[in-house]
């Protein structure tokens, strides 16, 4: 989890952002919880979701964050963040239940076979791509009813986590 403290007009707002998947974030603001899904995992990789923030000074009031997380320093956000924030802000934000146009690799691996072609109509749960990771073949299935707009994965291709395999459009 990453905690951002943003000061607006002298009032401090605490925003907690939890990355639940590369393109999905749980955002806690003012006691409410929002699920934010970014349209493209690739753009997320370039956006400043997890900025490298210098550790806070020793006298900082922020309680120590558990080990796996980088400590966030509320008042010392480097200029880097605001400078690049617009990149994030321009991303279309989709809610949880919305249509997901891109199917991304859930883990690094090798594409074994592709089972759809552009123009195919797929049903939710239908096998789209077989991906081998750690010597195990995983069935990557369609998250929703859709029409295949573009197939980017090729059999034998090595993919990284978050690489887009197939692009969908609404049926």
């Amino acid at each position, binding site marked *: 989890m990453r905690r951002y403290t943003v000061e607006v007009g002298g009032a401090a707002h605490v925003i907690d952002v*939890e*990355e*639940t*998947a*590369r393109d999905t974030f749980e955002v806690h603001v003012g006691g409410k919880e929002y699920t934010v899904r970014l349209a493209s995992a690739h753009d997320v990789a370039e956006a400043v979701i997890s900025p490298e923030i210098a550790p806070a000074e020793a006298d900082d009031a922020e309680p120590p964050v558990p*080990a*796996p997380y980088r400590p966030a320093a509320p008042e010392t956000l480097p200029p880097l963040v605001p400078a690049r924030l617009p990149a994030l802000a321009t991303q279309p934000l989709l809610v949880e239940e919305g249509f997901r146009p891109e199917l991304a690799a*859930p*883990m*690094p691996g090798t594409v074994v076979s592709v089972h759809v072609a552009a123009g195919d109509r797929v049903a939710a*749960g239908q096998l789209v791509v077989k991906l081998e*990771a*750690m*010597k*195990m073949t*995983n*069935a990557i*299935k369609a*998250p929703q009813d859709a029409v295949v707009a573009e197939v980017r994965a090729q059999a034998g291709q090595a993919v*990284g*986590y*978050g690489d887009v395999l197939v692009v969908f459009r609404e049926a």
Partner: protein
Amino acid sequence: MSGDTLARLLQGVLHLTPGAVFMLGIGLLLVYLAVAKEYEPMLLLPIGAGCLLANLPLSPMIAEDGALSVLYRMGIGNEMFPLLIFVGIGAMTDFGPLLENPRMMLLGAAGQFGIFGTLLLALALGFELNEAASIGIIGAIDGPTSIYVSNLLAPHLLGPITVCAYSYMSLVPLIQPPIMRWLTTRRERRIRMPYTQRTISRRTRVLFPIVVTLVVGILVPMAIPLIGMLMLGNLMRESGVVERLTSASSKELANVVTLFLGLAVGSTMRADSFLRVATLKILVLGILAFALDTAAGILFAKVLNAASHGRFNPLLGAAGISAFPMAARVVNRVGLEEDFENFLLMHAMGANTAGQVASVVAGGVLLALLGAG
């Protein structure tokens, strides 16, 4: 033809004892499981063959200088074969998923509780402490460690313990899922976990085996042979400068030693030592140890889940055992049953490799506790 000549010609038939016939049946069963069911065929086939060759009447294979006796003295009696297998395992194992997510080490540790639980149960059933400790180690489903520990502590139980460890290893996909489903709620199984792919630097990958060897070696001297060999294999792999040694260790050496090890272990399965009530008890305790290890891992993962406010999938606890990569695959599969987009594989691989390291350490701790060496 005199009766004497006839007896000589038929001496094999005449020396066929009921016990030997039964053991031949066990040998055939192991071969059947390997060939027809493909249960760990790499091990069960040589073990079954070793059992057959050792139990045929008057088998010269187990005479003083028989091939199987020589193999046994060569690598089981002095612990050489399990250690060479560990070099191969180290050369084959990618600790990347564990290094990406070091907290998985906790699950590997939790997966070893069953060892000590079973040890207590075995004591209650009337086994000696050294025997009980050897039986407990089955729980981690770690073949080479089981062989190593039981041969030091209770050599007379080596056959049943090894067969037990390797048979249950092949039964991981059958034994674990019911326990996993029983101990977790549907909601817990559906917890998705972020997978943040971090690039692990070569320096970290090379330092990992060295640091583990030094730290574990100093803390648990009895684990030095096992962890040292495992990490040697991994150091060769990650250093990238001895490709030929890495390749030989993970292929030729591992294959040859597996054949020798299987035959030699099979040859210890003889009627007088195998056909005992103790063997049945070991089979039952072994499966219990395995179930306990799985349960302990899951329960501990549930604690982690509570500590992280519901962001840790408890299924991962089942991967904290040594059976690699079967346990991780089972976790991934059970997770996918509930949600076809919930891929836990990379996390499970981390926990699984942690389980491998932890079971070696647990073996060393047991040996140290019992003052073996």
